[in-house]
């Protein structure tokens, strides 16, 4: 036990003013839903009800799409790029001004540690708006032709793992390109999207340019199937992604899908060992492992397996699991009871199939949804925990002997979103990066994001790219 016990250092909730109930944000106003029942959003760390949120039914979605269409035709579409940019810059600055508040709200509603929402999520949200604001008056230089045009109305459905960051990934390029938006946040994490609606009001964004419809699968379905939506963008599970691809097949809607992953994080014997351990930890325990590009399959060269495992376990012993609002928390709460059940189930499968399970000693809070950082050893390619996305703080460790074998194992998955390579040898990094069928390949780092860098997957991890110039392309007809 440490003699240096860190006293609780909670970030204050006082900065956030959560209303008891929220309507839908349509045409610049918060309005009541006409055909859905309100639902509750809770804090996964305490199961405390944070607010009641309206469920948008098909009629509400229709209203939102009409508002978006009207704004597209009358205001946003015809507006000069440099004027759209002004709004986006304004939004970016407002996000920075309200950064602390948004970070606290994100951690409350999602369960992620405040250190991450404060240092990663919200700064990246602002960075995305700044980045795409700069593109708004330069679209003819985006490499998609001389006169690129927006699609029109974008219907966007985002997940609960990075609620506000995913919103930024979707809304910033859409607006910069001249589209208007109807966005549905995840049902467990609607609050930062609703705060963003307030920011749109604060920024005097013309009504209808951004519409936020809250709800679950039914709402999302109504949105992506709406006949007047021109462009569908979805981030979430591969199963829902498939359903969306089916429903838009045969229509003229443009689609981008950002789906699941089972990334290989590949450690060679000449890796910078201490930073590699940090990269493994960051790869799988960042955001409780609720990351589509998480490094959930650790591939270690056999010659250094024992040393890597010993160091990893020692490092995992220093991870602090608990109150997401405590500034010293490394791992927060699992986002929902349903997700916790799924993580538990797949972990049980891992044990049943003969893999060895290990977690450091850590006391989990009695209330809320928690899962300790976990590592499975003795895992083979045939195990379900090596193939299926767990989407939790669970790492499967496999070994390899040669670079060729590492590539084969890394690519032997229906997914292909990301991969990591750890070695001091530059030529090997380049060779590996060319062999790996993954949209993002990190070398001697992991889970690094930047608005200028495109992100997206191969195979069942989806299609289309977000971020950078490529992300803009997805919102331009060409």
């Amino acid at each position: 036990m440490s003699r240096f016990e860190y006293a609780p250092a909670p970030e204050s909730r006082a900065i956030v003013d959560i209303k008891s109930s929220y309507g839908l944000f349509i045409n610049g106003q918060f309005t009541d839903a006409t055909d859905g029942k309100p639902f509750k959003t809770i804090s996964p760390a305490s199961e405390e009800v944070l607010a009641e949120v309206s469920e948008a039914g098909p009629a509400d979605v229709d209203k939102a799409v009409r508002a978006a269409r009207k704004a597209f035709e009358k205001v946003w579409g015809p507006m000069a790029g440099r004027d759209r940019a002004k709004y986006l810059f304004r939004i970016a600055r407002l996000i920075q001004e309200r950064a602390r508040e948004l970070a606290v709200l994100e951690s409350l509603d999602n369960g992620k540690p405040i250190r991450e929402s404060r240092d990663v999520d919200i700064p990246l949200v602002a960075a995305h708006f700044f980045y795409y604001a700069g593109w708004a008056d330069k679209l003819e230089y985006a490499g998609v032709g001389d006169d690129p045009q927006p699609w029109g109305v974008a219907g966007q459905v985002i997940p609960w793992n990075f609620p506000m960051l995913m919103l930024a990934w979707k809304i910033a390029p859409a607006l910069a390109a001249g589209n208007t938006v109807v966005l549905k946040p995840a049902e467990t994490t609607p609050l930062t999207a609703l705060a963003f609606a307030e920011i749109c009001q604060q920024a005097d964004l013309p009504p209808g340019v951004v519409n936020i419809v809250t709800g679950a699968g039914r709402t999302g379905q109504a949105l992506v199937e709406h006949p007047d939506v021109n462009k569908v963008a979805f981030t979430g599970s591969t199963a829902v992604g498939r359903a969306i691809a089916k429903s838009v097949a045969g229509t003229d809607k443009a689609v981008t899908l950002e789906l699941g992953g089972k990334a290989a994080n590949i450690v060679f014997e000449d890796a910078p060992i201490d930073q590699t351990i940090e990269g493994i930890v960051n790869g799988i325990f960042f955001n409780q492992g609720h990351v589509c590009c998480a490094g959930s399959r650790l591939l270690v060269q056999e010659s250094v397996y024992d040393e890597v495992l010993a160091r990893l376990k020692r490092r995992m012993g220093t991870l602090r699991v608990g109150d997401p609002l405590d500034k010293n928390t490394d791992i927060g709460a699992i986002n929902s009871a349903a997700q916790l059940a799924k993580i538990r189930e797949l972990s049980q499968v891992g044990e049943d199939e003969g893999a060895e399970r290990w977690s450091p000693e850590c006391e989990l809070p009695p209330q809320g949804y928690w899962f300790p950082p976990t590592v499975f050893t003795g895992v083979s390619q045939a195990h379900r925990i090596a193939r299926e996305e767990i989407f939790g703080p669970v790492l499967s460790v496999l070994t390899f002997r040669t670079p060729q074998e590492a590539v084969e194992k890394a690519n032997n998955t229906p997914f292909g979103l990301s991969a990591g390579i750890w070695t001091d040898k530059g030529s090997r990094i380049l060779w590996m990066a060319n062999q790996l069928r993954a949209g993002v390949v990190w070398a001697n780092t992991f889970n690094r994001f930047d608005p200028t860098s495109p992100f997206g997957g191969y195979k069942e991890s989806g299609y289309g790219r977000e971020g950078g110039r490529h992300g803009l392309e997805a919102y331009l007809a060409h």
Partner: protein
Amino acid sequence: MTTLDSGVDSLADVTSSEDRLRRFLLGLPGVDQVGAEARAATLSTRSIKTTAKAYALDLAISMIDLTTLEGQDTPGKVRALCAKAKRPDPADPTAPQVAAVCVYPDLVATAKHELKGSGINVASVATAFPSGRSSLAIKIQDTKDAVASGADEVDMVIDRGAFLSGRYGLVFDEITAIREAAGDAHLKVILETGELVTYDNVRRASWLAMLAGADFIKTSTGKVSPAATLPVTMVMLEAVRDYQEATGLHIGVKPAGGIRTSKDAIKYLVTVNETAGPDWLDPELFRFGASSLLNDLLMQRTKLATGHYPGPDYFTLD
């Protein structure tokens, strides 16, 4: 990466020839600069409040090597510094004593006399500090002088020129020679990381010093910029942790120079805690080479106890 779990015997083997030593040092796992700096930056976001802060402030005070290393040092200045070492806060006898007073060899006797019976060590720099550009004979004599005058601890510098030109055997032999000349005195080996520049070099020099018999590895003389930095200290803490795993021996770490605020000191203690582990949260194994840091720690300590900041005039400027 070199497997480090082979124990003391095989480590004795790596120092049996210059060639083996060289292969061992060059075979140590590399340090990725970006990753190391990112890790240190994350560690510095730890928020240390209330009881944890009180613990950290007192611990930091007890780890200070209160230092004066100036051409203008006089017996009077050293006496004043010793008085401060014994009772850092004249207004509050509960403030802990510092670990040691660090001076040039010619002032060791003065410090020794002043600190008699206090339990506070006298540390002396030696070996042609700070540049180390003298013959080995002079460095040995410098060390012997310091020890003969009563130094409990000797802070030596390595030959950075020899290290950077790859003459690891020469650096090793010098350290072992000084180790012998220092006798029972605690030996701190100053790497001068600001001149070694890369983290790979810091890791190699750390191992080299430990293999040659250092009791402590120390970042800097304080005369070269940059002096101590958090990532450099973290890399050294990783080295002592790995050395302990390989040999069972605990080697101390001393960042020196440039640490002036309580906030900085606490970041270092967090890094000690989460890198080398709680064993190193002890003045026997971790020191701060500093002078102005002490007053800031005392000021924060008083703030924590009384709820308000006293002015700087309430703390002595010795």
